């Protein structure tokens, strides 16, 4: 018990530092954020065409939606007539399958001249393989061209961008609630340079309503809600394109919670969706005649999840959460609630 009261006193004394500490802890776990690498994400991806880029970015695309739909609530109890304001930071990460650090994609090519002009008029197959965006940053991928069952050409792909099995995201959050059982939440950061990822902007908003506001003394608190998010990464090629990355994610959820003293155990089920559009101008490193616009959209696979979490009120609210769908997502948050 001394340890508990010691922590509580520590939290009271240093509560201003807890959000930063939470971010640092998560970053220490997931690994260093890509900073001074040789190539930014934009510089890497503009060296490859559509098929390669789709495979290369697939773990990023699939993980980002679940990340955006994570840690949307830490309690299902929203007061009916007690205004509550909160602000803080949430950090989350999707733990990728080990095999998602590499890929291999096979594409039928009607005219191999689209990849190697010296093979114009010959049909064949391209085998694209190597690290994904979360793979080895020291190893280039490879593109092998086959015609009539025989290898006829081989080219370098691109290395990984960040060698990690964690796809992370961190966001500040504010909420206002406690009126008629409603709670409105906003997550936002303006366009900010995130190292080699590029200039990124993020906004998310949602609304929750708690049945506990009208259902007196329920065995557990119940709540429904939704949250919509959008994250963009700026395209720096200055050729009039849209953003390099446009992503959006939606979540519609049902939550339940039960509190004992300072602890709140919560869980929920959500229906969710996500999609991402990637746009850039492909610049072939060997054949400038092959340069072309690339634009593709991918929908996230994850359509639902179960959530389990615990929140601890030690002057600030600290919560830990795990989400289980096609992808496993973990999150922590620190919120000051008034």
């Amino acid at each position: 018990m001394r340890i508990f009261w010691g922590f509580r006193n520590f939290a009271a004394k240093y509560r201003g530092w807890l959000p930063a500490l939470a971010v640092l802890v998560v970053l220490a776990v997931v690994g260093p954020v890509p900073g001074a690498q040789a190539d930014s994400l934009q510089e890497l991806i503009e060296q490859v065409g559509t098929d390669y880029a789709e495979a290369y970015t697939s773990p990023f695309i699939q993980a980002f939606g679940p990340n955006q739909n994570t840690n949307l609530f830490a309690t299902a109890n929203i007061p009916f007539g007690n205004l509550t304001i909160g602000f803080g930071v949430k950090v989350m990460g999707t733990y990728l399958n080990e095999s998602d650090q590499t890929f291999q994609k096979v594409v039928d090519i009607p005219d191999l001249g689209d990849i190697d002009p010296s093979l114009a008029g010959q049909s064949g197959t391209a085998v694209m393989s190597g690290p994904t965006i979360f793979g080895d940053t020291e190893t280039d991928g490879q593109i092998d061209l086959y015609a009539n069952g025989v290898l006829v050409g081989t080219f370098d792909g691109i290395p990984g961008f960040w060698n990690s099995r964690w796809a992370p995201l961190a966001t500040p959050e504010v909420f206002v609630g406690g009126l008629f059982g409603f709670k409105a939440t906003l997550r936002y950061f303006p366009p900010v340079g995130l190292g080699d990822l590029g200039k990124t902007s993020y906004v998310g908003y949602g609304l929750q309503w708690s049945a506990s506001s009208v259902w007196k003394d329920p065995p557990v608190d119940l709540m429904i809600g939704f949250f919509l998010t959008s994250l963009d990464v700026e395209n720096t090629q200055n050729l009039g394109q849209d953003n390099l990355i446009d992503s959006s994610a939606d979540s519609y959820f049902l939550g339940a919670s039960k509190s004992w003293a300072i602890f709140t155990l919560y869980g929920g089920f959500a229906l969710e969706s996500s999609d991402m559009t990637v746009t850039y101008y492909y610049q072939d490193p060997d054949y400038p005649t092959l340069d072309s616009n690339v634009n593709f959209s991918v929908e996230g696979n994850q359509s639902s999840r179960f959530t389990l979490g615990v929140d601890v009120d030690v002057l600030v609210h600290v919560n830990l959460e795990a989400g289980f769908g096609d992808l496993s997502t973990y999150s922590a948050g620190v919120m000051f609630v008034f």
Partner: protein
Amino acid sequence: MKPGIRKTRGIGLAALLLLAGGLLLNGCESDATAPRENLPPPTAQEAAQQAALVAVSAAKVGPKLVTFNGTVLAEKELGVYPYTFPEGGNITGSIMLEFFTGGPTGTHSAWGDADYGLLYSPGEEMVTASVDLGGGVGPIFGVSFDLHGDINQAQDTATVSGTGTFVTGDISDDFSLTNVVVQALSGYPEGGSLTLKAGSHEVVVTYDGSSTAGVAVNAVAMFTVDLDTGILSPVID
């Protein structure tokens, strides 16, 4: 310890155990999302093209058993010769040659006295033939050999059999040679056959001493192969 505090600790512990249980139940790992596709199985024509390249390589490499006249011995062992094809030629790579008198159970001898020989690829070595399949298509491949056969010094021929492997990119096929008669004069095998398995297809290339050889896929004569270029031509009924 006060009952309330004990209860609080118990509830907190239960919550964390539930969270840990959820992790264990579902596993900590996500489903895979990155594509993991493989090349489709070869078509009949693709299998035939692979066999054609082996046939060209065998026709160019096999005669070394009767045309070799080098002097450098491997580790000064009589009758054991390493050979590297000269740069700029239509074959690149290295092979080992061993010569015997008294047949396969005989003793090592100099190449000029041998009545039996081995031709094989040392270690991971492969040889490759420079061919042009037309349209700017220069295949990238390697072939390893493990051949043996009787040598007829008077006629400058050898009848070889054995096995080998054909590799091109991620594709690897095994093949066998049966009684292929290699000769020093024209360089085109006078007889014998090569059998290659590629996917569900079995390809048999039959030599007849000319610059072309017949290619049958799954026992159906479908092509002929030019032993100088590796180009397949369909058989016209």
